[in-house]
């Protein structure tokens, strides 16, 4: 059996990749994907622990996260499309009308 730490390290790497991308990328879609990456890093941790401790609540949480992520993806993509239509760019640094 694969030890728990492998899953955790993999989840950590996924999460770190997500964070790094989130902080460095300017393209809004890339940032979006990075968020998904972070969520899935967390999901992996959840299911790893659930498998380890034979507890179902971890699995249930993952479902919740997936549902929320799906909803977010739908709303987020809609927003991105709306932004692109008005601003004609996907660079977040240019989407700064609300900034003083």
């Amino acid at each position, binding site marked *: 059996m694969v030890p728990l730490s492998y899953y955790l390290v993999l989840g950590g790497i996924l999460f770190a990749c997500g964070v790094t991308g989130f*902080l460095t990328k300017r393209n809004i879609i890339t940032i979006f994907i990075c968020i998904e990456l972070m969520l899935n890093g967390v999901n992996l941790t959840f299911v790893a622990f659930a498998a380890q401790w034979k507890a179902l609540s971890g699995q249930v949480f993952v479902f919740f996260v997936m549902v929320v992520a799906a909803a977010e993806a739908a709303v987020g993509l809609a927003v991105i499309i709306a932004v692109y239509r008005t601003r004609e760019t996907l660079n977040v640094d240019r989407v700064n009308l609300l900034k003083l």
Partner: protein
Amino acid sequence: MTPNLHLWLIPVLPLIGAAINGLFGRRFSRQIVAGLGLSFCGAAFAQALWVTSQFSALSTPQTEMLAQWIRAGDFSVDFAFYLDQLSLVMLLVVTGVGFLIHVYSVGYMWEEGGFYRFFSYLNLFMFFMLTLVLANNYLLMFIGWEGVGLASYLLIGFFFLRDSAASAGKKAFIVNRIGDFGFLIALFLLIKHFGSLNFEQIFRSVVPMTPETAGAGLMTAIGVLLMVGAAGKSAQIPLYVWLPDAMEGPTPVSALIHAATMVTAGVYMVARSHVIFEHAPMALMVVAIIGTLTALFAATIGVCQTDIKRVLAYSTVSQLGYMFMACGVGAFSMGIFHLMTHAFFKGLLFLAAGSVIHAVGGEQDMRRMGGLRTKIPWTFWTMTAATFAIAGFPPFAGFFSKDAILFRAFTSPYGSWVYWAIGVFTAFLTSFYMFRQWFMTFFGEYRGEETAGHDQHSRAGAHAPHGHSGIHESPKVMLIPLVILAILSVCGGWVGSERFDKFLSPVFHPHPFTAFSGPVAPSVPEPKSEGASETVFTLVSVGVALLGFLLAWQLYYRRPGLPQKIAHALDGFYEAVLNKYYVDELYAVLFVKPLVDGSAKLLWHGIDQNVIDATLDSSADGAREVSDTMRHMQSGNIRSYAGWVAAGAALVIGYMVWTGTR
């Protein structure tokens, strides 16, 4: 069965007047303000008269309990008033003379700004003064004591736009504080040792004690400290310096507060505490010595003053010295007798001087007066009565009281020929400077015209721009009080020291609670066996008064050039006296300057600026510098915020992992 005297009304009535005038007086016309001020003061006087009419039927002393004030364990202080012969005399003097001066003020202050303020303060003063004389315990007396100080401060600085008036007010207040400090310590000692501040209770426990003839003890300490308080309020050495400066106030104020009533509070207090003083011969001696020295010292200064009001101020200091001399030799009733006659004639002198100042348009320098006799006859004749009274000519009031004091100073068991000799010499000086003033003001040629163009007459502040042309007699409202006081100055002494002594004897001699008569020093002074008959003393005091008159007549009427020559001959000494022996300068160097420098250099620059302010400033600077570096985190860039969040989270997780693995 004693009727309810409603003593509380006497002080409270003027308080109501003060409140109404003080709060709403600005909107009232002068007539209403004057009417209110006069009627409340007059009502207090009427009430005092009514109490007097009931007095013979009363069993004295009367105590009227109003309310409990402080209760702490066994110690309690009440709002309660106390009426005996002594407070009755004070009551009549304060309300009577006070009312007359109120009337006079209507005329004198009519054209001044702040008319309502003036009457409000005057009424306030009456309230505190009456509280002082009616109190049945030292603490309530202290309230009145402080209150008259406050009213005095407000009224000295009445023309507050003039710098000298404002600082004179402050000086009076601060010098009085020094005296009050002594008074307060005396009160603490009384509380500690007797557990009470009530006059009757204290005196009842003091009476059985043995007098401290051998050495100084508790009674002496209390007595001396009380005298420190009295010296502040009654302008005795070394705290007399405020009174001459207090002449910056309007003249009715000088008459009421700084001659007739407030400054005599110290005498009243010493007389009220006579039981304590009789048990402390050394404290009595201190009182007598201070009084005698002050009488002489102030009289010599008075000789050289040229400001009409300052002559009177030093004369007041000197006469108060007489009163303390009387108290100090155990003749308390004579001190009070002189207090009463002094209230009449000195109040009159001030009011008449005010009338003179009014007449010559604000001039106060006697060198610019002269020849006013025919121009303002009413003022002249009333002032003449007062001058003869203070100089001690029979049958004027001052003769009786001063003569009695001098007689007692010699014959009393506490007395000594030294007090008497200095007293007689002071009487001579008094007569001299008063007649000097009289001649300079009313006789000879008028010397005001040639210097009228100078701006010298701005001393009287708002009085200068009266717009009157020429010298004119004062209005009737000012003259009537003058005449009444003149009558009192003439007749006030006819009651005679014997009868006055007898009237006050229930207060001063056998205490109703002294069933026992132990080794208390005899408070009824037995004449010494030297066989000095009273007639000789009388002749001597009349003689010196006459001498003073003749000298003044010679120097200031017959040969007006002579004083100049004498002044030149006595150059250094004359300078010293003219400058009041440089006492103010001495105090400035000894006390004021070290205090100011100490506060400025040590407390202000040293502690306040370098320690307190510096601490605050540096902590504020530190906070600003830290914030200055921290604010760069707040860049507005979303991703840098996210970075900080991530870094923070990494930090927390790292910490948890680190602690978890240990």
